[in-house]
């Protein structure tokens, strides 16, 4: 956070203090033991610190201290990585990114915010932490392909009828509202569906993380009003693109926090432990591994920052920058944590040690919203497009 404004620094230190007190590793283990993902009251207090409103303009009830909400959000995510904190920051932010842009577009067209169509009430509830929402974008048995939904949103007299199955919906069980990607009248649309609507069935899925939960959601003839549609059909691919960018930079930023913390305590461990009368950290074979870990950490930080900046600026290069970061961070992060486990020796593979908490989160993120292999192909394709024919 070098070169950050005083407002940003204050915001970050407040967030950090809150996380250290209320989302420590001990707390994460307690939640896991109790079978709880996170406590809604805890999230409401996090929302009071402004975490849920960072992507939301002030006239819709949000705001960011630094004036750059995407960067502030990345700061929170990085801090959360340090204790692999629980909470619905990712799903709520991802949904808000879509809602806000859709509302913005409508405002530009109509010069007025119509409560029914702008989803202002939903946005307000999410910003305050009173409600939780999640993005239902994945479908069972299929890889990351947000623009190829099989869930259908058939037109009815008063709105739409949703049928089909989504899965890997983060915090689905805790969410009041889902933003569902569906095929409707030959186009891709997104609909806000209350989880208590008749025909919605939410079933938990096991996840590799201790507290991050995912659900399979079945939509069986679920009826929603016209106003459930988010944005126009023409606008939807752009909204999905933006939501995916937010989801991916949040992952990368959180992983940077994870790696920073894990490397820090692994170096400390290697400096304190002695074998053959000398610190582990004095062996060149290990020093060189630490050097590589440091290089990869700074590279993860560099590429994440670059992606965050491009997404914040809505630059035309944002898709490429995000895929570059997602590929690199995804390829390196969990391998780096595995290295740190090796450098710890036997204690590293015990349940008692915290390393596996970090490994779980890093491994989770490697594979969600596209694997490094998926993003390599995307980078190849985008680079080919960008290159001038010569």
């Amino acid at each position, binding site marked *: 956070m070098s070169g950050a404004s005083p407002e940003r620094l204050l915001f970050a230190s407040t967030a950090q203090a809150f996380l250290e007190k209320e989302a420590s590793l001990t707390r994460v283990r307690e939640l896991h033991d109790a079978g709880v993902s996170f406590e809604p009251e805890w999230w409401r207090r996090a929302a009071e610190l402004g975490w849920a409103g960072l992507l939301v303009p002030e006239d819709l009830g949000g705001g960011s201290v630094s004036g750059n909400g995407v960067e502030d959000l990345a700061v929170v995510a990085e801090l959360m990585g340090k204790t692999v904190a629980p909470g619905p920051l990712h799903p709520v932010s991802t949904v808000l990114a879509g809602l806000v842009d859709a509302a913005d577009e409508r405002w530009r067209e109509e010069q007025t915010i119509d409560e029914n169509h702008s989803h202002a009430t939903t946005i307000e509830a999410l910003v305050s932490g009173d409600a939780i929402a999640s993005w239902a974008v994945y479908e069972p048995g299929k890889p990351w392909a947000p623009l190829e939904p099989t869930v259908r949103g058939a037109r009815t007299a008063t709105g739409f009828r949703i049928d089909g199955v989504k899965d890997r919906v983060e915090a689905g069980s805790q969410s009041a509202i889902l933003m569902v990607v569906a095929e409707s009248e030959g186009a891709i649309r997104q609909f806000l569906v209350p989880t208590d609507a008749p025909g919605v069935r939410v079933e938990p899925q096991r996840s590799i993380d201790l507290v991050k939960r995912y659900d399979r959601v079945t939509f069986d003839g679920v009826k929603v009003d016209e106003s459930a549609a988010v944005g126009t059909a023409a606008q939807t691919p752009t909204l999905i693109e933006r939501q995916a960018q937010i989801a991916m930079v949040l992952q990368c930023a959180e992983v940077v926090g994870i790696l920073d913390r894990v490397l820090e305590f692994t170096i400390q461990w290697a400096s304190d432990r002695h074998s053959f009368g000398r610190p582990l950290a004095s062996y060149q074979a290990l020093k060189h591994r*630490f*050097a590589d870990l440091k290089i990869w950490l700074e*590279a993860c930080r560099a*590429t994440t920052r670059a992606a965050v900046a491009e997404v914040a600026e809505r630059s035309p290069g944002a898709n490429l*920058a995000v895929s570059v970061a997602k590929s690199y961070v995804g390829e390196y992060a969990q391998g780096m944590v595995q290295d740190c486990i090796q450098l710890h020796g036997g204690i590293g593979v015990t349940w008692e040690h915290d390393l596996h908490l970090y490994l779980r989160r890093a491994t989770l993120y490697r594979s969600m919203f596209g694997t490094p292999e998926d993003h390599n192909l995307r980078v190849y394709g985008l*680079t080919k497009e960008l290159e001038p024919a*010569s």
Partner: protein
Amino acid sequence: MTETTSAPTEITESVAEFAARARAWLAENMPRIDPTNPPAADRGEEEPWQRVRELQKRLYEGGFAGICFPREYGGLGLPIDYQKAFDAETRNYEMPMILNTPTFTICCATILDTGSEEQKRQHISAALRGDEVLVQLLSEPSGGSDLAGVITRADKVADKWVVNGAKTWSTSAFAADYGLLLARTNWDVPKHEGLSMFLVPMNSAGITLRRIKQVNGSVEFCEEFFDNLELDDDAVLGEVNNGWHVASRQLYHERRAVGGGSEFASGIGSEGKTDVPVDYAALLEAVGQADNERLQNIAGRALVYRMVHAQLINHVYHGVNDGSLPPAAGSIIRISHAVNTQLEMDTALAIAGSAAVVDGAEGLLRVGERYLSRQSASLGGGSTEIARNIIAERILGLPREYAPDRGVPFKEVKRNRS
């Protein structure tokens, strides 16, 4: 002669205005090129060196040389943003790229840090005018990594320094006017304390120069032998027996420059054909595999690394400037450059298949030939092993390697068995 004023530069022009003026000037004065197919500038040939001196002179006369060097030494005294903006404008023009390293980014930068007023005025402005090319005379045939263990000697005989010994791996020394030579001036003290740096005219009597031929056929590197080379006191850069300080500045500037993070480099783009980034799409096309997803994936991975390397250069540059990373972080870029080069060469070789090893209609034997020199990027400018020691010890603060020569008078230190 340049104006001699030591007053801080008053910046009257915005970056955008500067860039606009540069754009107009470049269009009028510099030769246009196709950046994807730059003219050859083989550092091993004589002609490119004449060419870049001429180009540098044009830049100087146009008022665009040494953007980040102080005005009193012939530069413009502007912040790096101006240099970056200028670089972006030069994309389609022929620039004196091979003068950047070592002349500007290492030698002039070090003279600026450690030289006398007279040395700064003489050498930096001569280089900016295109009148002087500089080279480093550091590594010796006896060993590369232990730089402070050099055994080339400079002995004071009457009022002259008399130099005897040998240096190697000096880039394009045959084309240089001056060299920065590290020699031992005191053998009775530990190795770092008995060294001095000299600014040596390369046409002096007593220097014999030989070219080194590398695997790829390049003859840019040289080896020099010194037989009773005589130098005056004013040839000393910095202080007598404080040469390690000067050498450390060179190494610092070198690490930044090798990774592409020096504000003293001017222009972007390749030095010549052999330096052009791999065009993976063209390569897949050439081997008839444009739609092969497996090859697209490995090409995509190499592109990811290339872009992350560029982002890392920027991140480290700003990190060192704002103090969030120590100056030794230049070694991060140095290693990233080596790793990136390895991956690029490996990926190109994998995609080209047999066309890289037996010349065919595809014309891709150059891919195989380029691969043979892959390790140069991991050795030049100090091996990556030494760079990893530096990161571990000076960035992470881990214990230093055991060194039996520490604190021991150099004459008592064990050396190579001959």
